[in-house]
């Protein structure tokens, strides 16, 4: 403790920019800018006042109201279902893509890699309208199907934009794989499938989990593309919240938003924990 204090009194070294007050002030201002809106939103979801602005005491009424809003709950259920299915498929496709690019040399590889990066760089609005046209003109998705099949159009769109991201995460993980292990397994008589299952897959697992969490958050978060592929009976949570916030700010929406913030933040923490430094190291090296 006393050591700390002595160290703090020494003047900042030439490159210790973080210990200079202008930069500290700037950081604090940016933190307020980034967090004040979200924190006030979360705090006031517990405020016992419809007018939503002066603190009138703690209440969970708006959470109760949000949980009793059957449309909101149905939309939330849809969102989780879509996110779950889209994650499973995205991870499978992403893993295959990563394996393909990691292991093989083939004609058109650069072209494929370019096409794969398109879903990441194309503006969301363009992909949204493309999906809208595709699912009305080319492959009309029957909305009368039993749940959850009626969510097919949304799920397919989500997989299309998620799996490229997943592929990047898994490829980063595979880059640290020691190929000698694969050769050793082959020399010891293992077939392709056996090598994959017993040698490559265990190494890939953290990447699969991190990619899966990324796909889950991407799907749960998406508004624009879902907005163009959802119908009256197939709303998701963000689309439902959008229709609620379009014209007014209400404590129920604050409550619903707070729940979603907590879920995504929790998922992010888990993802960061699991991901370790693979992706960061790759990004820094590349």
């Amino acid at each position, binding site marked *: 403790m006393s050591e700390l204090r002595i160290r703090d009194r020494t003047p900042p070294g030439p490159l210790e920019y973080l210990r200079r007050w202008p930069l500290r002030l700037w950081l604090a201002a940016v933190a307020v800018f980034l967090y004040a809106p979200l924190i*006030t939103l979360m705090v006031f979801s517990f405020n016992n006042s419809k007018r939503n602005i002066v603190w009138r005491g703690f209440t969970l009424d708006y959470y109760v109201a949000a949980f009793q809003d059957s449309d909101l709950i149905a939309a939330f259920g849809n969102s989780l279902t879509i996110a779950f299915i889209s994650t499973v498929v995205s991870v499978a496709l992403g893993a295959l893509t990563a394996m393909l690019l990691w292991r093989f040399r083939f004609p058109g590889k650069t072209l494929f890699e370019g096409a794969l990066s398109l879903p990441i760089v194309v503006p969301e609005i363009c992909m949204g309208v493309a999906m809208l046209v595709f699912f009305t003109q080319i492959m009309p998705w029957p909305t009368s199907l039993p749940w959850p099949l009626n969510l097919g159009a949304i799920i397919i769109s989500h997989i299309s934009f998620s799996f490229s991201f997943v592929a990047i995460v898994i490829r980063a993980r595979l880059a640290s794989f020691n190929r000698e292990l694969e050769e050793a397994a082959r020399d010891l008589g293992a077939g392709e499938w056996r090598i994959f299952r017993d040698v490559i897959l265990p190494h890939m697992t953290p990447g699969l989990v991190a990619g899966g969490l990324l796909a889950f958050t991407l799907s749960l978060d998406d508004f624009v593309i879902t907005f163009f592929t959802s119908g009256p009976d197939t709303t998701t949570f963000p689309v439902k919240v959008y229709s609620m916030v379009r014209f007014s700010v209400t404590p129920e929406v604050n409550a619903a938003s707070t729940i979603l913030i907590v879920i*995504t933040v929790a998922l992010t923490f888990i993802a960061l924990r699991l991901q370790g430094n693979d992706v960061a190291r790759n990004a820094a090296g590349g």
Partner: protein
Amino acid sequence: MDESWKRAKGVFAAVGIPPVFWLAAFFLIPMAIIWAYSFGENKNLVEISVNGTFANYAHAITPLYIGIIFKSFWYAVVTTALCLIVGFPVAVAITFASDKTKTWLLLLIMLPFWTNLLIRTYALMAVLRNEGFINQFLSLLWDGVSHLTALAGHPLPPFQPLPLLHNTFAVIFGLVYVQLPFMVLPLYAALDRLDRSLLEASLDLGAGHLTTFARVVTPLAMPGIVSGVVVTLIPSVGAYLTPDLLGGPSSLMIANIIERQFKTADNWPFGSALSFLLMYMTFLAIAVQAIVARNRRAAASEAAS
């Protein structure tokens, strides 16, 4: 290290076919249809004939729409500039922090970026609207001052809320709020790779901190600045939700116009043409970044040899 696909054709097919199929069927084909539609026209309510006309592109460059495209681009440029100004000191602070602080600061920047975009935008609505936190706070201050002046016999006129929402200010504010992490992370990645002895040399040789940053750090960090600019600019130009919820009628951006062509105006060919103009702008930005990066690398290897 790579293995030729011919050496294990079965595995290659098993691994390659599903992703290639998915990408083609559920991404490239939808995009290709939009591209084709941009050269078509509405025949009747349900049918669109693709007849190779450039009428939609001609329509898109009429003053009204070219104005909106330029405005979107302008908003994005202002947003990017503000993000650069706000983000650069943040990136510097993260770069020169101790390892433990660094992790926390990175998390501080990234956490809002992982929160739902709709919810972040909604939070801004709650802050900026007439009954929002900023105006309520100002109103309280105003009332307080008014009480004091009333004692002196001159009460202030009633408080008029500042118009902070549903205008251009709100859109730019919202875009900066949403895009800031996209700017900070590439800047940090570039600054973190700098050779610190160069900074120390500059400081030892008598340059001040500002001179060092202007003449040593900025040129060295240029690739990071360029990629930060590109990753901020691209989503800003195509932003839909921010202008939709925070903007007013005069601050619509290109994405809002595209949405209208598809959802209300039912002019899909025109909407498709606008979409592809937006895509071409995106590709142009990426190409510029790639060229800058390549020139840098070429220059660096020349300098090294």
